[in-house]
């Protein structure tokens, strides 16, 4: 049996394998180390960091729903200053690569925070959370509009050397023009999808369950929505796609790879099965070797005849 190369490339960054921990579900990377080997991840995306400290939303912030979780954390976090002083140093010793997620409320904030992330030890790429459905912004969020996403990506690309990943929301009529705008603005990769907007009503208290009102739906419930997003966008852009949304098993991950993803991210599934990354990695290697491939990246786009991208192994 040939050995299978698991490495993949996101812009100029090389990950040892295509399985990534999703932002907001792995904090700064250490907690799950208490029960599993976090080295199984090719990279860990940290919880999005904002310019200013944020207390986040009031409680309740989460509610289990059928096949998923509804959350409205509200980007609780210490802000970039505290992050750089107190938390970034620990990232250097995380036993796998780090993707720094940045969230913001203006083009300039994105650029400022991203620039300060650039060059941190162990940080191999910057992901732009332009799609968080939880934060109450005036007007539409960046990711709903091709022009604003273009502006954010361009501003960040101008100030960083690391690869830039634009993370898009599925809450739009058509993802393709938005994805194309990010690509044209210079994004090195796309992450799809962020949480789907939703709500649970508390029928006992006759009000929305989450203090924030609306929340983001994640987990297996959204998997078909996410697979379709990857499949459609993979026909429209040439840059690599990091697919996510409800991946729990190796077969789920294969759906995304076959649809056109170069890598996959795992969020909510960690909350159920902390060993999920190792299982997915071995399923991907098994599938590649069963097909006689020498790299997992050869799996990308196999179910998508109009797949437009390249199969980017390292």
């Amino acid at each position, binding site marked *: 049996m040939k050995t299978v190369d698991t490495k993949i490339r996101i812009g100029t960054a090389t990950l040892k394998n295509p399985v990534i921990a999703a932002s907001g579900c792995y904090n700064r990377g250490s*907690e799950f180390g208490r*029960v599993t080997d976090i080295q199984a991840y090719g990279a860990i995306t940290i919880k999005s960091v904002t310019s200013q400290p944020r*207390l986040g939303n009031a409680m309740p*912030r*989460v509610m289990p729903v059928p096949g998923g979780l509804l959350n409205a954390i509200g980007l609780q976090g*210490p802000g970039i200053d505290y992050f750089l002083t107190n938390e970034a140093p620990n990232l250097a010793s995380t036993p796998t690569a780090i993707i720094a997620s940045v969230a913001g409320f203006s083009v300039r904030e994105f650029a400022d925070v991203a620039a300060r992330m650039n060059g941190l030890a162990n940080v191999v790429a910057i992901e732009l959370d332009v799609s968080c459905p939880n934060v109450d912004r005036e007007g539409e969020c960046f990711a709903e509009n091709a022009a604003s996403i273009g502006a954010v990506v361009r501003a960040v690309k101008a100030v960083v050397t690391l690869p830039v990943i634009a993370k898009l929301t599925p809450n739009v009529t058509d993802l393709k023009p938005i994805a194309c705008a990010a690509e044209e603005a210079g994004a090195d990769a796309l992450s799809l999808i962020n949480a789907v907007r939703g709500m649970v009503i508390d029928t006992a208290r006759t009000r929305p369950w989450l203090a924030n009102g609306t929340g983001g739906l994640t987990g297996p419930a959204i998997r078909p929505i996410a697979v379709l997003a990857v499949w459609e966008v993979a026909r429209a852009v040439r840059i690599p796609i990091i697919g996510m949304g409800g991946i729990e098993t190796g077969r789920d991950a294969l759906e995304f790879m076959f649809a056109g993803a170069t890598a996959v991210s795992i969020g909510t599934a960690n*909350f*159920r099965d902390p060993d999920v990354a190792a299982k997915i990695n071995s399923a991907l290697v098994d599938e590649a070797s069963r097909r006689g491939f020498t790299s997992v990246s050869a799996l990308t786009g196999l179910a998508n005849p109009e797949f437009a991208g390249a199969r980017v192994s390292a």
Partner: protein
Amino acid sequence: MLMARTSRWARNGTRNPSSEMSAVQLALETAVVTSRESVAPGFWRVALRSPRIARAAGPAQYVATDFPGPFAVRLPLGIWTVTDDEFSLLFREWGERTAQLSRVMPGMEISVIGPLGNRFDIPEAGTRATIVAGGIGIVPFWLLGKTLIEAGVKTRAIIGARTKSMLAGVDELRELGLAMEICTDDGSAGEKGSVIDILRAHGATDMLYGCGPPAMLRALCEHANAAGTMCQISMEETFGCSMGTCWGCVVPLRRGSAQATGYPKAKEEQRAHDFSRVCTDGTVYSAADVVW
């Protein structure tokens, strides 16, 4: 004697779980159901074989359970009783997950992570301790009661429920040899009234332990703080990850509380309080720290 204990707390706050817990065994394993019974209408007791968790468990610790069903996250449940190689759960049929768990049969397997969370502190022998439990808030008190008795702490328990049929777990608690007073809102068992009524009526104690619905816990903390009595409560929130990563389960603590060492380090002027993750920094908090 009491002073010594008090000063230890003053120094450490409630023990910091992050450092302590990583030293303790934390198991992620598949456990076999050894028994399952209904202890009251809608209340279930399920025992699981897991020597690692049974031996490591301390009072107020919980397990994050996973079993087949339309669920994306684990269900947190307190550890009720322990033997050398088994522990049990005592739970109410709340919603989908607890309903599903109530249908397990001996021989089935479920996945558990635990023991999670910090523990109640145990004072020195001779101290007078009072346990105050409301409803299913009785769960942490089998293991606490046992530990206190073994430590020579003079312990009594006030156990309340809405009505007689909701007094689940009382018999098993009584078998520990704990001095117990029972009350129900409707007087259908024990005294009529709330656990706080009984607590107020009875005399002084050195240490209070509480678990139950938020309104009860709040009243307990206010009573304890007013009386200057040491008090620890085990809190509950809806959990996402149960592992400290998602920030879904936070409670506000007064600024600077030792258990709110994590996020956010918001700018001073922004924070009226700090948030603490119940799943990892708790579930046990000092009455003095909690912001209601």
